[in-house]
C-alpha cells in the first residue's frame, strides 16, 4: 500500500499533515519577508477566511445556502466587544462566550427553518440578517448605534496584549489553521459523508434512517460559529465595530469569495479570501471603479472556471498531466 493510500484511510492524519505544513509555511512568511504592511492584509485574510470556511461547510458540503454569515460575524464581533469593553471580560474569554449566543441563535433558526427544503433557508436567513442590522443600529445604549463601538481591547491573555501586526499574525493564523483542520476533519468524517449525501438527495438519506434535519441544523450551527469567531477576532484586531461590520453586503461578499475560490473545496475558501483581499487592496487606487473591477474579475473567473478558481486550476493541472502521459 502506498503512502497516499494509507493516508486516504486515515483522513485525520492526512488533514493534520496538510494543515501543519500550511501553518509552518504561513509562520515562516514574516521570518523571510520581515515586517511590513502586507502583514496587516494577511491578518485580514486569516480573519475573513473563517466566515468563508463556515459558508463553505454549509453550502459546499451540505448544499444549503444561508445569507446570515454577515449577521453571525456581527454577533461575534459585537458580542465579544460588549463583553470585553462594558463588562471587562478578557478578550479570549469574551470571544468564546460570544459563541454561546451564536450557537443558541443558529440552533433556533436551524431547528425551525431546516425542516424545510433549501431555498427557505436563504430567505429566512436574509430576514434574520436584516433584523440583526436593525437591532445593531437601533440599540444605541448597547451597541453605540450608527457610531459603533471604539476602544475594544486587543486579543491577549494574562495581561499580555497583542500590540503589533506581527503579534496578531502569530496569534490569528494558528487559530485559523486549527479551524481549517476542524473543517477538513468534519468534511472527511462520517458527518461530512452524510452531509454530502443530503446535498444530493434528502429523501434517500431519510430512507436510510438518517435524520437529515438534525445534520443540517448541526452544520448550520458549526458554520455560524466559524463566522462568529471570525467576527470576534476582527473586533479585537481593528479595535472598533460599526453596523457595516458584518452587514448583508458582507454576507454577499462571502458568497462571492466562494464563487471565486470554489464551493466544493475548503481550501478554495482561503484562495477566494486571499484573492478578494488583494483585489480590494490593489483596486484602492481606482476607488471609483473598485466594485466594477471586482465584478468583472468575478465574471471572468466564472466564465473560465465555472466551479471556482481552485477546482478549475486543479482540473487544468490534472488534464495537462494526463495529456502528457497519453
Amino acid at each position: 500500500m502506498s503512502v497516499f493510500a494509507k493516508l486516504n484511510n486515515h483522513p485525520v492524519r492526512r488533514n493534520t499533515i496538510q494543515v501543519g505544513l500550511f501553518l509552518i509555511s504561513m509562520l515562516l512568511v514574516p521570518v523571510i519577508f520581515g515586517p511590513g504592511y502586507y502583514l496587516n492584509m494577511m491578518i485580514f485574510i486569516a480573519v475573513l477566511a473563517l466566515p468563508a470556511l463556515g459558508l463553505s461547510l454549509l453550502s459546499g458540503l451540505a448544499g444549503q445556502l444561508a445569507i446570515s454569515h454577515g449577521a453571525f460575524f456581527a454577533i461575534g464581533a459585537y458580542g465579544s466587544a460588549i463583553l470585553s469593553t462594558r463588562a471587562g471580560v478578557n478578550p479570549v474569554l469574551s470571544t468564546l462566550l460570544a459563541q454561546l449566543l451564536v450557537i443558541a441563535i443558529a440552533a433556533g433558526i436551524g431547528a425551525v427553518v431546516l425542516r424545510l427544503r433549501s431555498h427557505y433557508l436563504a430567505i429566512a436567513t436574509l430576514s434574520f440578517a436584516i433584523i440583526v442590522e436593525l437591532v445593531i443600529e437601533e440599540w444605541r445604549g448597547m451597541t453605540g448605534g450608527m457610531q459603533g463601538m471604539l476602544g475594544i481591547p486587543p486579543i491577549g491573555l494574562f495581561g499580555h496584549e497583542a500590540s503589533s501586526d506581527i503579534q496578531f499574525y502569530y496569534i490569528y493564523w494558528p487559530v485559523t489553521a486549527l479551524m481549517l483542520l476542524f473543517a477538513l476533519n468534519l468534511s472527511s468524517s462520517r458527518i461530512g459523508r452524510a452531509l454530502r449525501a443530503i446535498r444530493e438527495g434528502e429523501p434517500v438519506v431519510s430512507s436510510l434512517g438518517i435524520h437529515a434535519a438534525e445534520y443540517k441544523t448541526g452544520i448550520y450551527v458549526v458554520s455560524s460559529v466559524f463566522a462568529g469567531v471570525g467576527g470576534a477576532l476582527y473586533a479585537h484586531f481593528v479595535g472598533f465595530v460599526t453596523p457595516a461590520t458584518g452587514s448583508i453586503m458582507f454576507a454577499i461578499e462571502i458568497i462571492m469569495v466562494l464563487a471565486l475560490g470554489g464551493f466544493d473545496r475548503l481550501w478554495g475558501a482561503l484562495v477566494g479570501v486571499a484573492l478578494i483581499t488583494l483585489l480590494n487592496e490593489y483596486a484602492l487606487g481606482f476607488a471609483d471603479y473598485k466594485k466594477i473591477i471586482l465584478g468583472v474579475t468575478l465574471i471572468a473567473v466564472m466564465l473560465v472556471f465555472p466551479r471556482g478558481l481552485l477546482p478549475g486550476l486543479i482540473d487544468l493541472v490534472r488534464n495537462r498531466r494526463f495529456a502528457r502521459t497519453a
Partner: protein
Amino acid sequence: MMLAVSSLEKRFGGLVALKDVHFSVTPGQVKAVIGPNGAGKTTLFNLIAGTLKPTAGDIRLDGETIAGLPAPRIGMAGVARTFQQPQVFASLTILENAMLGGHRYHRGGFLACGLGLKHTKREEDKLRERAEQWLAFAGIADIAHRNASELPLGQQRYVEIARAMATGSKLILMDEPAAGLDDTETRELADMVRAISDTGTTVLLIDHHMDFVMSLADEVLVLNFGQRLAEGTPHEIQKSQLVIDAYLGIDDDA
C-alpha cells in the same frame, strides 16, 4: 407478521390513489405487488416507507404501528428501500454509498469528528468493514472506489442493494428492480433477490416482468385502480379470472 397493512387509504385531494388495501407479509417471504400503471403500487411503497402519510388505515411492522411516522423513523425501525430510478449518491464513491447504509449504527458527532478523536477512526473502520461486506454480497467489491455516477444503470441497482442491506433492515422494499434490464441482467437480479431472501431479510417488491415475479415470489398481491384485486401464490394469481381480465390478458407488454 412482519408487515401488516389494514384498511389503508390515500387520497390526493379528490383523487383516491389507494382504497381499503389490506395484506400482510410473513417473515422471510418474498412478496410481489403487481398491477397496471396507476394502480397505486409506488404510492403503497411511499406510504410504507413514510415518504407519504396515509389518509386512513394502519401499517404495522412486527406489531408496531409505523403508519404516518417520518421516513427516518421508519428507516430506523427496519425498513429499507431501493427506488424505481436508482438513487445513488453520484458524487460519492460506491463504498461511501454503502457506508451510508450502516451510518446510523456508528457514533461520532460534529465535535468528535471535527476534532478527529481516536474513537471516530475505530467507528469509521467498523463502518467500512460492514459496507465492504455488503459490497461483496452485491458483487461490486472490485469497483468500490469508483464514483457511483460512472456506473451503468444495472450496476447502480446493486449499489442501492448493498446500501439497503447495510442498513441491517428486516424488510426491504424494491420498486421495479428489473426495470430497464435485459433478460440476462433480470435473471442475475432474480438470483440476487433470492440471496437477499436467504439472509433472512423479508422482501416486498414491485415489478412488471411477469416471468421475474412469478418465478421469484412466494406470494403476489394484485392492485387495480388503487384497490386490492387479488392475493395468493403465483399459481393462483395466474389462474384467477379477475386478474386475467384486469391485467394479464389485456396488457400485453407485461
